[in-house]
């Protein structure tokens, strides 16, 4: 007999045995000595009366054996034998669980990587994103100026360090052809905040962080491998970026991709650069690392006080500003949180449905196993032992399902990465021990969900006899528990199907909207540029206009324009505005979306002019070069507003000729105003899923040097891609053209997350309905088998086969219908979870829900048909003879 004792307890127990037994022998010896015996004689006598200590200890060990593991091992062997005995049953259970657990683990792996884990930096939870905002005017401006960032970093007491960065697309021209590179410009302390060091080489030296110091860059592992074939001698080599020669001082680790994965080059911006001495010019996206014991609330309070002081010190620029601090992880992944949890919820419902199926399978099988169980009872097995055995069987199956599920999850997470390339942190999704542990946890939960009920039911002592009789003399469909489970499944499946239906309908609705602009036959792309160019806005605008001229001369091009943002791709830039004429009261707020376009934008996107005329470009003033702020000839700025703006803010009166000021720390100086020259039709600029709101089109170049170029073509837009590239290379040989893509594809990509969740939820819902149909099929088949005798009798008494089929079919459909009703309620209750993801359809949309119910009933009817027909094919004579 195998024996097993806890090794750590074993030694302590042995010691106790020894001292307890020795005490007894010693006392006995002492007593005999006291009675006058010689010590030797007394010891001999005592040993004789006491018995052999080794034998006694062996008996004591027997008493203390731990039986649990032994029993578990036996149960395990027994379970394996049973599983091998009914392979088809086991395979069905394993596959069902593999699907349920696999899908669950796959979605969990995404949630774990994206939402649960800290950012991939040392103590990533200390990283914060810092932004400034104007408290008086609605203004989305969130970047910081160099001086303010340095003030925050110097004066605060809650952060280890604060740093900033911004990225631009640059051209690297040391090779044969110009290459577009993404360059991140960083303040000092950037790597210190992130807690990362170069894999090779070093961080910037203090000289390199001073204006006029040597030009130095850090490069990405990817660029290092591509351009230098991973040669360590790349350190010290020069790159020619936007015409500047920079030495490579460090190579970053392959895992490092901040602010995003595309960055190839990091270069330092000196804090003492003359162009960075204006508190109003803001361009740094700002991050900070909290001191170890500081809480977010303390940091917020600290920075609020600090900014209030700065407001007193610099009333003109800082008085109306406040600080917003959020965990960096939140700003990185906050946008996809609801989608991911929604998917996790649905995939958990799926697992629940799978478990319900298995419960039904086990319930049906328990009936067949009644005999075996009663034999075990009569042999004296306690109920707990029988239950443990039944649970072990399910656990072994669930474990096999979980292992297979891990393979499913591994494949699924690859699919996930392909389908959802735009998701933040998607490259961090992979299977590791946490996911394996999660799958194991799932299998334990599945065991409990699937096993406990059937096991307890099967071991109810008085059930064995009654059930055995039921099998033979059943006259009605008396398996209410199974039908209840089918109903539950239907309800859950309907919930999932309703969710998928709503998402599909919004997806369709989104495809059908008339956006107010024409997306087909438009090619979009970027041309590399540097923020340095914004110091000379006039020159920048001239350069862009020259490029547009060149594009217009290309055969096949109908119109060409630039815009700061793509129409229909979600993005917004809302600010508060004010009419220059009268209406000075602060209550009468004007809030509108701002778009920066070249005059041909409306011809290119085919947004129609409703009244007035299109805008013209402003005249620039020569003057001190300072980026961000524009110096323009007075009254030369003009704007076009959309119909919604005119109807909302000046209904009925003539809006043309009025002037608009921008409030807050925005893109125009307060003294500059834009003259409204015309009204255009409403277009869904801020996203295809957004009703057009009041919008102001500024005929100004975007505050960035690198706007989107839009080209309307006569034919398929991508056919012109190479021509466009060549034409621009002819006039701008040092610049690279990149991200060439039709506007329609850009719009598709913008809604990729939308598409992903729709595809996934639809897949889950279809799986759920299939599982439910299998459950219904199984239960009806079982019920039909139980009622063979009754059917035989009925047929013998003259019932028609058609009636029998109808009877069984109706039984299945009645349960399905009740499940649908419950599912409808569940779906309307949970529809609110989806409301942020829906477009053009309400969460309780009756059409969708009724379609879903109809579909479910149809699927149920087809699943019920086969067992119903089989149930009616009973030979009455045979059944009666069986008695």
């Amino acid at each position, binding site marked *: 007999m195998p024996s097993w004792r806890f090794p750590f307890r074993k030694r302590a127990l042995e010691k106790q045995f020894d001292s*307890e037994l020795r005490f007894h022998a010693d006392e006995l010896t002492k007593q005999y000595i006291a009675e006058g015996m010689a010590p030797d004689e007394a010891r001999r006598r005592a040993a004789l009366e006491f018995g052999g200590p080794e034998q006694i200890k062996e008996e004591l060990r027997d008493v203390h054996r731990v039986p649990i593991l032994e029993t578990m091992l036996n149960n395990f062997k027994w379970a394996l034998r049973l599983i091998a005995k009914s392979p088809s049953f086991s395979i069905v259970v394993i596959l069902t669980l593999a699907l349920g657990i696999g899908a669950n683990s796959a979605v969990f792996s995404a949630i774990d990587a994206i939402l649960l884990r800290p950012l991939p930096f040392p103590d990533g939870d200390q990283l914060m994103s810092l932004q400034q905002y104007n408290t008086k005017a609605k203004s989305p401006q969130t970047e910081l100026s160099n001086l303010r960032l340095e003030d925050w970093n110097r004066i605060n007491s809650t952060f280890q360090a604060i740093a900033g960065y911004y990225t631009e697309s640059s051209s690297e021209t040391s090779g044969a052809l110009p290459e577009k590179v993404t360059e991140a410009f960083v303040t000092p302390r950037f790597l210190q905040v992130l807690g990362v060091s170069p894999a090779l080489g070093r961080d910037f030296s203090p000289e390199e962080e001073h204006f006029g110091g040597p030009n130095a860059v850090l490069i990405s592992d990817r660029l290092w491998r591509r351009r230098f074939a991973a040669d360590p001698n790349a350190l010290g080599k020069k790159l020619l970026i936007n015409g500047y020669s920079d030495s490579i001082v460090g190579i970053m680790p392959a895992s490092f991709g901040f602010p995003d994965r595309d960055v190839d080059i990091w270069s330092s911006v000196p804090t003492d650069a003359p162009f960075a001495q204006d508190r109003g010019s803001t361009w740094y996206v700002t991050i900070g690392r909290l001191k170890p014991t500081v809480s977010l609330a303390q940091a917020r309070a600290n920075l609020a006080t600090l900014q209030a002081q700065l407001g007193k010190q610099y009333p003109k620029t800082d008085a109306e500003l406040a600080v917003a601090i959020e965990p960096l992880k939140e700003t990185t992944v906050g946008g996809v949180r609801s989608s991911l949890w929604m998917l996790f919820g649905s995939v958990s419902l799926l697992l629940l449905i799978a478990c319900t199926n298995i419960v039904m399978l086990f319930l049906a099988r328990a009936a067949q196993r009644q005999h075996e169980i009663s034999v075990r009872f009569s042999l004296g097995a306690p109920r707990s032992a029988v239950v443990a055995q039944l649970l072990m069987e399910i656990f072994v199956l669930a474990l096999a399902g979980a292992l297979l599920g891990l393979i499913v999850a591994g494949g699924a997470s690859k699919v996930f990465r392909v389908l959802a390339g735009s998701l933040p942190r998607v490259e961090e999704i992979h299977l590791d021990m946490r996911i394996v542990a999660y799958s194991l946890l799932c299998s334990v939960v599945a065991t409990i969900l699937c096993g406990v009920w059937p096991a307890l039911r099967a071991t109810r002592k008085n059930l064995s006899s009654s059930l055995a009789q039921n099998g033979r003399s059943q006259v009605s469909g008396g398996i209410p528990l199974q039908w209840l489970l089918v109903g539950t499944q239907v309800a859950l499946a309907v919930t999932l199907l309703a969710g998928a239906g709503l998402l599909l309908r919004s997806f369709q609705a989104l495809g059908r909207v008339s956006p107010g602009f024409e997306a087909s036959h438009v090619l979009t792309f970027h041309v590399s540029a540097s923020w340095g160019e914004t110091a000379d806005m006039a020159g920048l605008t001239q350069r862009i206009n020259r490029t547009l001229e060149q594009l217009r001369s290309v055969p096949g091009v109908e119109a060409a324009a630039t815009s700061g943002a793509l129409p229909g791709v979600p993005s917004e830039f809302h600010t508060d505005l004010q009419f220059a004429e009268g209406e000075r009261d602060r209550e009468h707020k004007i809030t509108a979306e701002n778009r920066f376009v070249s005059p041909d934008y409306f011809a290119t996107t085919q947004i129609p002019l409703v009244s007035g005329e299109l805008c013209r470009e402003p005249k620039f003033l020569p003057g001190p070069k300072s980026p961000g702020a524009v110096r323009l000839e007075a009254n030369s700025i003009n704007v076009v507003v959309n119909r919604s703006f005119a109807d909302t803010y000046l209904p009925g009166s003539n809006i043309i000729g009025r002037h608009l000021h921008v409030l807050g720390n925005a893109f125009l100086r307060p003294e500059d105003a834009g003259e409204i020259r015309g009204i255009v039709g409403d277009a869904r600029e801020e996203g295809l899923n957004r009703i057009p709101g009041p919008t102001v089109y500024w005929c100004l170049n975007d505050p960035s040097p690198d706007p989107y170029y839009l080209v309307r073509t006569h034919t398929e837009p991508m056919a012109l891609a190479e021509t466009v590239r060549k034409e621009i290379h002819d006039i701008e040989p040092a610049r690279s053209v990149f991200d060439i893509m039709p506007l329609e594809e850009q719009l598709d990509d913008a809604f990729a997350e939308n598409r992903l969740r729709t595809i996934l939820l639809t897949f889950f819902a279809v799986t759920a309905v299939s599982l439910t149909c299998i459950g219904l099929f199984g239960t009806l088949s079982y019920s039909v088998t139980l009622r063979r005798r009754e059917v035989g009798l009925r047929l013998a008494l003259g019932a028609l086969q058609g009636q029998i089929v109808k009877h069984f079919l109706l039984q299945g459909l009645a349960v399905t219908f009740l499940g649908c009703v419950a599912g409808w309620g569940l779906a309307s209750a949970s529809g609110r979870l989806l409301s942020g993801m829906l477009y053009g359809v309400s969460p309780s949309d009756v059409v969708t829900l009724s379609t879903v119910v109809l579909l479910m009933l149809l699927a149920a009817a087809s699943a019920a048909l086969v067992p119903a027909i089989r149930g009616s094919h009973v030979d009455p004579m045979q059944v009666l003879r069986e008695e």
Partner: protein
Amino acid sequence: MPIEKSDLLQGTLDMLVLKIVTLGPIHGYGISQRLRQISREVLLVQQGSLYPALHRLEKRGWLSAEWGESENGRQAKFYKLSAKGRKQLSKEESNWNRLAGAVTRILQTAQ
């Protein structure tokens, strides 16, 4: 409740041990001494075989045990009756009395 034949001696020893332990915490040697005194040397079991019985009763929760100091200052394991053990003892006592009564009656009427 019928008592299995093979259980008889074991069950009896268990009952006697429980009875002795009622008087208060006592170590194995003490139990063995008292057992001999009470039964006037009738029950001559090997003293060591008492221990498997003690440990079994402890495992069933009828006895609780604690290490303490003996009368002469040595470490010894003291056994005490638990509430569960007290219940078990009264059950076994009444069983025993019923059985003993029945056996006595049979012996008397068969004379």
